[in-house]
């Protein structure tokens, strides 16, 4: 039986390393300035990067100058290469994650609701979660080739677990009183699932999707680096192979920032979705 998840184990994600109170206490009246101040260290790192390459401290072969990387990034964007491959990659991740949510959420809720399903599925879950899903990359390529299908299915498999587990835990936490009163008012089991259990489990599910989102990106990039013909990971590979390092750095940073942006965007969705619930 899967025990209660610790928030931290699911990524410790509350949107920041700092407890929110402390940040708000510091500058309550100037949120924009607080944001800038918060991210200044990153600016410092960027300056350090530029300084190290310009001064010749670090060889440009190993670390291209930041402005060269920026220029390369712009060139890739202008030529359409970046947008085309980014669209392919993001579509794959979205499809895989979407399918995982569609399949995993009902599964998790049913596992919490119906004991035989839980007993049947639990050992599979326990056996599969410690396995590095990236071990399935060669098999996926074997069955589905180098195209998008292998990526989507791998992401589906990799993301199912966090989504199912969080749906399970969320559903388990539904307050019994609500369920009893709904049933006593004549609601069918299905209706109770849909209107009581699902909304109650929603925070946990949304948090699980956040974890799954990070997994989706990792699996996407890993597979595209190893076996692909298109996509951002593939782009990084052939740029690196060809020795075009400034463009390679540009795409790596793009991928990293896309992952970050997706996480933050989902956080916004989470907050909106949960606020609406009140």
């Amino acid at each position: 039986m899967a025990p209660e998840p610790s928030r931290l184990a699911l990524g410790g994600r509350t949107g920041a390393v700092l407890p929110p109170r402390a940040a708000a206490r510091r500058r309550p009246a100037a949120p924009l300035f607080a944001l800038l101040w918060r991210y200044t260290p990153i600016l410092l790192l960027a300056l350090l990067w530029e300084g190290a390459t310009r001064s010749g401290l670090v060889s440009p072969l190993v670390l291209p100058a930041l402005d060269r990387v920026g220029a390369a990034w712009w060139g890739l964007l202008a030529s359409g290469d970046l947008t085309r491959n980014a669209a392919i990659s993001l579509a794959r991740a979205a499809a895989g994650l979407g399918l995982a949510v569609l399949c995993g959420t009902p599964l998790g809720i049913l596992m919490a609701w119906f004991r035989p399903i839980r007993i049947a599925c639990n050992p599979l879950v326990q056996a599969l979660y410690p396995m590095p899903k990236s071990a399935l990359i060669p098999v996926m390529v074997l069955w589905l080739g180098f195209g998008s299908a292998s990526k989507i299915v791998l992401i589906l498999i990799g993301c199912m677990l966090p989504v199912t587990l969080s749906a399970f835990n969320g559903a388990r936490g539904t307050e019994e009183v609500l369920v009893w009163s709904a049933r006593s008012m004549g609601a069918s089991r299905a209706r109770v699932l849909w209107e009581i259990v699902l909304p109650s489990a929603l925070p946990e599910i949304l948090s699980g999707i956040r974890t799954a989102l990070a997994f989706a990106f990792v699996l996407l990039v890993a597979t595209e680096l190893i076996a692909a013909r298109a996509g951002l990971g593939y782009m990084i590979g052939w740029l690196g192979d060809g020795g075009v390092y400034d463009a390679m750095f540009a795409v790596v940073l793009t991928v990293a920032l896309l992952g970050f942006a997706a996480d933050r965007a989902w956080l916004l969705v989470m907050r909106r979705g949960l606020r609406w619930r009140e």
Partner: protein
Amino acid sequence: MARISAALPRRGAAPFAGTRRRQDALRGLGRGLLGSLTLMLVLAAWEIFARSGAVSNFLLPPFSVVLARVWQDALSGDLIANLGVTLYRALLGFAIAAAGGVALGVLMARNALMRWFFDPIVSVAFPMPKIAFLPIFMLWFGLYDASKLTMITFNAIFPVITATVAATEGVDKEIIWSARSLGAGERQLLWQIILPAALPQILTGLQVALPVAMIVAIVTEMLMGGQGLGAAMITASRFADSPGVFAGIVEIAVAGLCLVKGMALLRRRLLLWHQEAKEPTTV
């Protein structure tokens, strides 16, 4: 407020510890058998489907053939060699990430400048697919173990830092104050008060970092070669050796399972005395 979870069997207060433990053990055994039954059904279905001829054995070799290959690998010493290399990389990277992550996390929690500097870096880097940096690391550190280890450490350190920061900050301030008022020095404070109090959450962070280290070790091997289970799987796929590919999956799955279970056991031992010891659902 009663929750659905209350309806499910749970370790609660028992009237007599002895009988409860025996009941628990029996129930655990029963559940374990039932659990393995499902697993065995799935494996049996695999075997039957593979042997039915509906799919070419190239695409799906029977489970018995895969098991035979695992056995063969074990006998020939290949399994130990590859598993050893992969585990060595994963565990070494994990150890560095653990030590470094805890140190950095404590520093960040206790020192305002450190926290100001590293907080955005950590919170931006955490959700990034850091595996994307692998080609850069290959450029910087070459194609031997150095780049693999650096990549593993880079990926595994973030959950440790986040957990440590939250844990250290979460230590009850009153305990710290009273320890200080009793004359405890900074070092004593750190090692005897703060770290033990923060231990459960730190261990949770470590439990998240360990599978990450394993995953990254395998992906770097697949991409860069150089012995190890990941490299062996890619070689097998080049040789159209699907029993080899599937054997690799089984070997990696078992290795992952052992590592995770081992970590969970370690956690239970370390936290026997801790009142907050809660098992996380690490993913």
